[in-house]
């Protein structure tokens, strides 16, 4: 589903990704771990198409597409979803309105009929129940005045509704208490199926107690330095990231 080869990317002329190789097949859950500044979030952003990054070498194939050639909204409509580390506030726009617009943008792209308000609400209510999210969430403005935990739940709700093919979660677990973490895990496990792939970007092993990955990769200094099964995460929990070597040169600290 996703094949990353020799990916190099820089921010403001400083190289952050220095040759990332990664292959993700449908049905798999991959965890990307690594110390701060290793390039984890940059990788997530480059895959989603955020501006401000220069891809200097390498390629990313997603399904039949050259992913890097697509505009961010086309990637989204093709099934790439990014759960943001810092979800953005959109004052005055209610959640339900954004969700409906997003879902219908995806449906139009697939040549499916748009959902009207009634059908949309029916399908959303079911997801809300499953994720134990207060229905009043829908009437609130997007992330405005949300606590950190609420923002992350909102990301998971959006993911559940948009049913992406490739879900990338960028440190969704950071700063969450155990209840919120369980909601996140529940949401991710609910969309786990043989046709989808999930990329979990995380600093801690804790999330992986609830979402058991098929593969774990350690990213350091902009490269995958180790890959293994779920036991690698447990090992990291014990040993920390000290073994990955000296601090990267200052220009890569982004």
């Amino acid at each position, binding site marked *: 589903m996703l094949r990353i080869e020799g990916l190099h990317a820089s921010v403001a002329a400083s190289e952050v990704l220095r040759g990332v190789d990664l292959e993700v097949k449908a049905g798999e859950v991959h965890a990307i771990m690594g110390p701060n500044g290793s390039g984890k979030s940059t990788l997530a952003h480059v895959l989603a198409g955020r501006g401000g990054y220069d891809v200097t070498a390498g390629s990313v194939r997603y399904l039949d597409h050259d992913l890097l050639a697509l505009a961010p909204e086309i990637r*989204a409509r093709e099934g790439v979803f990014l759960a943001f580390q810092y979800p953005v506030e959109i004052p005055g726009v209610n959640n339900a309105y954004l969700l409906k617009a997003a879902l219908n943008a995806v449906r139009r792209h697939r040549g499916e009929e748009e959902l009207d308000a009634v059908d949309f609400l029916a399908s959303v209510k079911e997801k809300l129940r499953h994720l134990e999210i207060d229905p009043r969430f829908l009437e609130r403005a997007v992330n405005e005045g949300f606590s950190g935990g609420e923002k992350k739940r909102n990301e998971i709700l959006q993911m559940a509704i948009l049913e992406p093919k490739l879900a990338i979660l960028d440190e969704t677990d950071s700063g969450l208490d155990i209840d919120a973490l369980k909601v996140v895990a529940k949401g991710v496990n609910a969309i786990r199926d043989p046709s989808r792939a999930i990329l979990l970007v995380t600093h801690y092993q804790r999330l992986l107690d609830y979402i058991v990955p098929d593969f774990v990769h350690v990213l350091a200094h902009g490269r995958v330095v180790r890959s293994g099964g779920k036991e690698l995460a447990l090992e990291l929990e014990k040993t920390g990231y000290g073994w990955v070597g000296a601090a990267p040169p200052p220009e890569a600290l982004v």
Partner: protein
Amino acid sequence: MTTTLKELGLTDYKFGFVTDIAADSAPPGLSEDIIRFISAKKHEPEWLTLWRLKSYRHWLTMEEPRWAHVRYNPIDYQQIIYYSAPSQRPGPKSLADVDPELLKTYDRLGVPLHERALLAGVAVDAVFDSVSVATTFKEKLAELGIIFCSFSEAVQTHPALVQKYLGSVVPQGDNFFAALNSAVFTDGSFCYVPKGVRCPMELSTYFRINAAKTGQFERTLLIADDGAAVSYLEGCTAPMRDENQLHAAVVELVALGDAHIKYSTVQNWYPGDKNGKGGIYNFVTKRGACRGARSKISWTQVETGSAITWKYPSVILQGDASVGEFYSVAVTANHQQADTGTKMIHIGKNTASTIISKGIAAGFGQNAYRGLVKIQPGADGARNYSQCDSLLFGDKSGAHTFPYIEVKNHTAQVEHEATTSKVSDDQLFYLRQRGLSEEDAVTMIVSGFCKQVFRNLPMEFAVEAQKLLSMSLEGAVG
């Protein structure tokens, strides 16, 4: 022609066509003779001719104000044509009598003149340059005793009402542009809703400046008698011209005891081209008087057009427990400038006012909010809440806020909040990551920003306003 327009960046303005009708115009320039000419053309009673002349003489003693946060080249008042009427038989009795060219113009504007009006539930008094073309639904309204007609017609048919209220809210010498309007106004709308009558439909006037080098000076007078209620919408467009055109209107609203007036404006006069050439100078005086107890006047404006917008729809809260509201969205893109806001003058006891102002600036646009909240000594228990928010696109646009607060009664409560924010790349990326195009993302952010104002517009106009907003901000990003 098309290529040239495209090159000049003029094709973006969707309503910039010119209707080819021979006009019956006065020569350019202003003098007592021109004023007598206008008055005679309109068969006005002598008191009105004298009223105009008095205004003109007063205007001659005044100086054009310079305090607004806008810049423009001096206006040569002797180059303006003050009267331009389409030549046709006077007083069309029905739509069939109206010049088909005119009707086509309205068709292209999407004004519902025919049966569509019935379906839309809108009564339209269409002002084409200086003469009212057709008034629909007049008869249906007349059954309820509601008078809704062109200003000139009201002068002929209801002179006593006109004489009683004309200039009672905006006096002749109120300001430079109001004095000019009082001298040379040509037409506009008149509405009177009698005691206890709630107008069953939205009343609407569509203004349009057509003839070249014509100033449009319309005069609107709206009176809601005791316990009456009316909602009025004004929409404006003008063709594209290289030269600037002056629009100096006066709108007066009078609400007697327990009366409610809701006045909504959607203004998209031609804003000039991408380089700031041409466009309308929209220098307008709008004011309402809450004369009776518990009366209410609510202004809602969506200003997307004009090269320069300079206006302050205001409310004089004279009656006890009367209420004034001002909801505004003003957009300035390219080289547009706006200096707009409101004045809330609290005179009666327990009067309340709300000001919600949303300014959006993109390109080189300059957007200023200027407002006055004045609490007079007798206004015990007066309350005001003001909120002024600005949204900026890019780094060459500007937002300015000039709130003036004068409180002369210690029981008053006055609150003022203001914010300025930029549309961030993070917001745009977030929405695009959810599958929205950049344009839809901008529209969504802007509608969220304007929500408090849009929800005060009648439903169908809220939709139109949202469309206009997206049109004005096309290409504001990236």
